[in-house]
């Protein structure tokens, strides 16, 4: 099996990790191969805090952070950013609001100042909020016409029924209409603060100086009102297969998503599930699913499986885009492959192939500043340890076919699947 030169991978010897006085965690790694810097991070201000009536508030708030601050109006914010060839954006997921930005290294102080300004001092001007609302509503109208997005959204509603993960974080047209400018300001005032804020910086910078630069703009930030994260309810398992169709007239292709819930990122089953998922619908030209649905049957341009694992329960699903007349055929083929996967698991050869792929692709996934930033945030978010990427090859190789089969049997039940179909 392939070996990896561990010196090229991020580890305790070249990751700087500093906790500021107000609890902000700063991670940094140097890369002088390009004169640029990537920053990215998150703080606990996601859509879990949204009420059903105002679903989308966390995302609306995150999107509004760059619409004007006490120091700069909208025009000034983007004039500063774009004149430097830099970018900065915010969005919210379920648990966290995230940000990501990039600039030439000479402009890092500017980017950090803009980031701090947006996080700490947004003013949500009414005119900008209304403009943003119109843009969001148009985005939702486009989403309603997108077969892949609607199938995915419907899948989440089935699998996570009764759980906050069933809700789309970007809301619905009526919930976006119900949100006021003051709601954004209140959400920001209550939830945004240094507790739980993690910031990673990678690029042509001195990591020792980074913490000081971040401290200069963020260390005096306090917010005693920051609440604890809501406790997630237990996820109810499906008792039988549930099928739901969304009719979108006039579409020449339908999308289907079939699957169930998966492990959390910190569960011991994550790595066996991840390798099993590779065999099922990722490896090569999309694993067994790609082979059966695309290569042998010619039914779809894309067909693959995915495993999304986060803080709470994840999703493990197979998706494909097919002609409306082939939906049932594709569904039957996919369900049969899931059955085979649960009954027989994976062969030693298949598992070895995917293990080689997982280990061998590390240099590629960690080549760019953005790739390393994501790795650092992954380490922090899931408490993996700074030496995670050094240990990673051994963690991958330790998985056996028996582990994969046991994991498949635990999560995938062929008679209790969620099936979502969107199309005309």
């Amino acid at each position, binding site marked *: 099996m*392939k070996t990896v030169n561990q010196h090229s991978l991020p580890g305790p010897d070249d990751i700087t990790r500093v906790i500021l006085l107000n609890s902000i965690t700063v991670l940094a790694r140097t890369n002088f191969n390009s004169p640029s810097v990537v920053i990215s991070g998150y703080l606990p201000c996601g859509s879990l805090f949204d009420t059903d009536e105002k679903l989308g508030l966390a995302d609306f708030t995150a999107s509004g952070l760059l619409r004007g601050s006490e120091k700069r109006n909208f025009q000034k914010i983007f004039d500063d950013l774009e004149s430097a060839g830099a970018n900065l954006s915010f969005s919210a997921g379920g648990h966290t609001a995230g940000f990501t930005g990039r600039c030439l290294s000479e402009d890092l102080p500017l980017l950090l100042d803009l980031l701090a300004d947006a996080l700490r001092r947004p003013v949500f001007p009414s005119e900008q909020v209304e403009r943003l609302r119109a843009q969001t509503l148009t985005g939702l109208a*486009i989403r309603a016409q997108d077969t892949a997005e609607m199938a995915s959204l419907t899948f989440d509603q089935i699998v996570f029924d009764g759980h906050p993960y069933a809700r789309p974080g970007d809301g619905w047209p009526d919930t976006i209409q119900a949100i006021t400018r003051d709601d954004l300001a209140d959400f920001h005032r209550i939830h945004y603060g240094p507790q739980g804020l993690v910031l990673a910086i990678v690029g042509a910078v001195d990591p020792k100086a980074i913490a000081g630069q971040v401290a200069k703009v963020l260390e005096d930030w306090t917010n005693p009102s920051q609440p604890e994260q809501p406790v997630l309810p237990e996820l109810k398992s499906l008792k039988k297969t549930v099928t739901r169709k969304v009719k*979108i007239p006039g579409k020449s292709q339908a999308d289907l998503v079939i699957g169930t819930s998966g492990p959390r990122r910190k569960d011991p089953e994550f790595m066996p599930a991840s390798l099993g998922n590779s065999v099922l619908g990722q490896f090569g030209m999309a694993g067994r699913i790609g082979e059966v649905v695309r290569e042998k049957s010619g039914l779809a341009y894309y067909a693959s499986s995915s495993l999304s694992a986060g803080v709470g329960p994840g999703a493990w699903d197979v998706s494909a885009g097919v*002609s409306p007349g082939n939906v049932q055929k594709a569904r039957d083929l996919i369900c049969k492959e899931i059955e085979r996967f649960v009954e027989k698991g994976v062969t030693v050869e298949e598992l070895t192939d995917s293990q080689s792929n997982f280990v*061998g692709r*590390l*240099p590629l996934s960690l080549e760019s500043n*953005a790739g390393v930033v994501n790795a650092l945030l992954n380490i922090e978010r899931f408490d993996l340890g700074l030496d995670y990427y050094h240990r990673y090859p051994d963690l991958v190789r330790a998985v056996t076919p028996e582990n994969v089969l046991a994991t498949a049997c635990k999560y995938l039940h062929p008679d209790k699947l969620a099936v979502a179909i969107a199309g005309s």
Partner: protein
Amino acid sequence: MTKSYSEHLLANDLKVLLKEIHTAPLVSSWIWYRVGSRDETTGHTGISHWCEHMQFKGTPQFPSSVMDRAVSRNGGMWNAFTYLDWTTYFETMPTDKIDLGLHIEADRMVNSLFDEKEVASERTVIISEREGSENEPFFLLGEAVQNATFRVHPYHHEVIGDMPDLKFMSRDDLFDHYRTFYTPNNAVLSIAGDFKTSEMLARIRDLYEQIPASPTPPRISRPEPAACGEHQLTVEGPGETTYLDISYHAPSANDPDFFPVMVLDSLLSGPSSLNMFGGGGISNKTSRLYRSLVEKELAVSVGGGLAATADPFLYSVVITVHPKCKPDEALAAFDDEIKRIQDERIPVAEINRAIKQARALFAYGSENITNQAFWLGHAEMFAAYDWFLTYLEKLAAVTPADLQKAAQKYLRPQNRVVGTYIPTSAEVQS
């Protein structure tokens, strides 16, 4: 980013460009063929793209499932793309595994099987790919505009091809296309990454030099005559959102006017990244069109783009119209902005800002070895690698007078097609 690279011509006229970059233990190898949708005739549209798909269906030495499993097993990434002027295949692999990629590409330059059953299976896959595109209003509108913009030049059809041709083309049509265009003398091999040039060149000679050259493939030469008036069209389809696609005939990448138009695009709709991999973009909220359309609530978004092509193609601006606004109102505001850039001298500071943005985008793209190997070969498809190396200098040399002249020459109503996507407000039912 290092500018150092070497160029070699093998005995069979295969051009090889090599660039050593030792920042990561990776090598990216790209083989480029001068064949794209512009090389297709009526009845055979989409054949270049379909050929690209068939290249993954195997040779006697590398049956289809063997190739992709081998690349994945070795931690590699591979893919292929078909465009107007070219088709390209790449592998980015750990340094000690790149030989696999070189070997696969040398083999499938001449030995692909084009098995009848595989052709039949891939026909429905490609039809499905086209159907997926037809779900998108932007595709439907863009295709109609492209058709209307080119009556004579073969840039007139989409790369995916027309449905009747996808249904009726035969295995022999595909194989003939392959045999005609997949020759070493019609190809460029570009490799960047962690290798020694002398060793890499020796290995390339071993694998590729014995492949015989063939007659130089023909290339359709039918220049598009000058347009003699604005063309407006509408496309109707499902949805609630109205879009505008305003496409002007634009200079080719090797025309000196390309650079002023590139700067015009940056000023009007924000800086465009030409990078295929890595880098990301820069927002466009201070661009002239964003200010005049989005901030005035005539549009919810606006974007523009100029493609680097061998022959003159298009400069396109796409506007997502505000739900409370009519497309004519957005178009009128767009035209006011075009008139302003044609009539008023542009401040040098605004040009310098565009250059800084381009410099940043270049830096972002240089983090990625795959992107560097991409550019090494891509530029050869319409000019030469020097085009890429001197790109920033050429942008920096653009003057306010150049910009005004280019705006007056290209951004005329007579030189454009305006397409409007009109939503038919189909209801979504659960």
